[in-house]
């Protein structure tokens, strides 16, 4: 298990390779479908410090509010490929170092990560109560009214958030490897 502290620089991120198990600590922000669309249409400046050298988490958490503020109850990853249209531009513009989600992303994001120095960390889909335990504190929420609770930007402090590097900053993708191997087996089974 490799421990990562956010923010993280390009040199450190390029050390990571496909298959590495990582535990991430620091402050990161959730952004999913509506948030990505909003960023691309508005290029907001206030997002920049949340993303630079940090992590974007594709997640729409279940959040409870009490007198002490917000608490993440259940916060697993959502399917990342829906952000394929937006992510390469966001990586180039804002410089996040880690994209966290599930299911992997496409070749355009892989190329953007290779160019800028970023990796994709796959969290365990559906393991939302487990993952919520590593979210220590919710610092802030942005655009809650406009985007709704699942799609707002939740700025959260995490400790030992675990995942697997499935796309690295050198063009490596576990998703491409598994797809190719399974395609071969599919063809054999279709005979």
């Amino acid at each position, binding site marked *: 298990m490799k421990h990562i502290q956010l923010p993280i620089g390009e040199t450190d991120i390029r050390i990571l390779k496909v298959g590495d198990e990582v535990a991430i600590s620091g402050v990161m922000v959730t952004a999913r479908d509506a948030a990505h669309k909003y960023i691309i249409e508005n290029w907001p400046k206030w997002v920049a410090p949340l993303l630079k050298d940090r992590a974007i988490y594709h997640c*729409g958490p279940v959040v409870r509010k009490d007198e002490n503020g917000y608490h993440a109850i259940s916060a697993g990853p959502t399917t990342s490929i829906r952000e394929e249209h937006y992510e390469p531009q966001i990586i180039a513009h804002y410089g996040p170092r880690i994209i966290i989600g599930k*299911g992997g992303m496409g070749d355009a994001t892989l190329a953007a990560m290779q160019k800028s120095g970023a990796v994709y960390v796959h969290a365990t*889909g559906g393991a*939302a*109560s487990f993952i919520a335990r590593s979210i220590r504190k919710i610092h802030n929420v942005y655009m809650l009214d406009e*985007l709704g609770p699942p799609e707002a930007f939740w700025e959260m402090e995490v400790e030992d958030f675990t995942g697997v590097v499935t796309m690295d900053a050198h063009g490596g993708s*576990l998703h491409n490897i598994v797809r190719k191997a399974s395609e071969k087996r599919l063809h054999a089974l279709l005979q």
Partner: protein
Amino acid sequence: MNIVRAHKLKDHFVELLRSASSQLPGDVVDALQQGFHQEDKGSPAHMAMEIILKNIELSKANSTPLCQDTGTNIWHVYHPQHICKTALEEMIRDATEEACRLSYLRANAVDPVSGLNSGNNLGLRFPVISFYEWRSSAVRASVMLKGGGCENVSTQYALPHESLQAGRDLDGVRKVVLDAVFKAQGRGCAPGIIGVGIGGDRITGMIEAKHQLWRDLADRNPVALLDKLEQRLHDECNQLGIGPMGYGGKTTVLGVKAGAIHRVPASYFVSISYMCWASRKASVTIAPSGKTTFHKRVPRSMTCNTPNCKG
């Protein structure tokens, strides 16, 4: 009417949603444990299965949603004659709102025109409720929570399918199911459970596919040819090697369940409903006396094509 008003069905429905959201049926947990043991130690697949099993324990202990995507809530309500379905529907909607307030469910209803989230998990045809009249004097309600990730990889084929060389027979069905599982890779949150609806039209075929997801994993298909197809597909889907989360591994699906309904001569649809590993289902029966039974496994009667079949 009386049974609906008299026995605080809303409270039972809130409890049903809590249980469905935070506890998996035993057959699914057993299958996941089996999957965990067959993955190679130290592999990403093994780690994913370990986290999945830990998550199951934590969610159950703390009544927190297994997955933050509490999905589309699909209700099947079996009821005696002369019952007020409007009142039942009101109870379900009230219970849904309450369960959302208690964080058992996420506010998941988004208006596609305005883009706004309704905030209380209620919307147009949201949740989805089907009513079936049966001969029993009890009310039985079952709910399935189906997340968006696995719904997005669900699909439908029309046979014949040229590039897959899938003809209009059960071997053609086999080929398109394999193709669908291949295309899904890990994105439906593998290991998944595959519901297959053979025949029907574009709507009824998909309903049949989803209907298959109510079945217990150990349940064998009473139609011999379909049973054989299910067993073969279970084995062959796992041969694809996609594995948990698409990391590569031995456990790609936990089961394949297929049902067939009549089609018109011109159409041969194969509808495929992919259910993620977090196959959340729960069922409750309320007798006229008020006696309430929560079922750990969805009773057999829920999984038959006709509501009055013996379950």
